[in-house]
């Protein structure tokens, strides 16, 4: 299975791209995904104030959050206003 990852704000620089496709073995969880990312990227998105949106909805950051094929997971750092 594969996921679409979206990196907003400064996380785009940490990930090297605004979007990435992440292949993962099924069944997958958030912790499995983080383990599959380069350590610098995993560290950047695991920061205390980064929020998560799964398929366009804010979800709690929980290690055992299940992920499914085709999911879009967005990493949202603190917003910096209009």
């Amino acid at each position: 299975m594969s996921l679409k990852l979206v990196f907003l704000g400064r996380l785009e620089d940490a990930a090297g791209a605004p979007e990435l496709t992440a292949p993962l073995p099924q069944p997958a969880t958030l912790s499995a995904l983080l383990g599959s990312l380069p350590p610098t990227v995993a560290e950047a998105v695991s920061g205390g104030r980064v929020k998560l949106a799964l398929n366009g909805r804010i979800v709690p950051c929980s290690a055992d959050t299940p992920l499914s094929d085709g999911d879009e997971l967005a990493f949202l750092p603190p917003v910096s206003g209009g």
Partner: protein
Amino acid sequence: MASNPKSGTAVAADVRLVETPFDPSAELAHFTAAHPSAGGIVSFLGQVRAGDAVEALELKHYGPLTLPGMRGLAASALGRWDLLGLLIVHRSGIMNPGEPIVLVAAAARHRRDAFAAADFAMDHLKSESWFWKRERVGGAWRWIEPRPDDYADLARWDMPGPV
């Protein structure tokens, strides 16, 4: 669509996220013409500051969250004050110094509702809406982190904290 808390009538907000430059004067003229029964219209225009060595400003948004969040904010304002109309136009993308970023206008029978609703909408757009901002200085882009003042501004309204 939300109900006016005093009259109970439905009031529609005009909320837009735009990727290209907009004309604040034309927007305001159209909004004013649409609300002839308003006794007062308060507007706020935010623009890219010139003269800080900033060559360009870029606002990024996240499609599934940003516009729905702005609509939710408009509904909160309509539910809280006695308004006849509310306009929010917000840019996304790359902007040059002097270009408009955001226009908020509130139309009400009486001015205090219009002032308060416009102020409330701006404080929440600045500190709570799903936008990420970076600026280009000397040819290099750098991300802007939230300012403590933005959170203090939000606390004025006695609402849940910023996201």
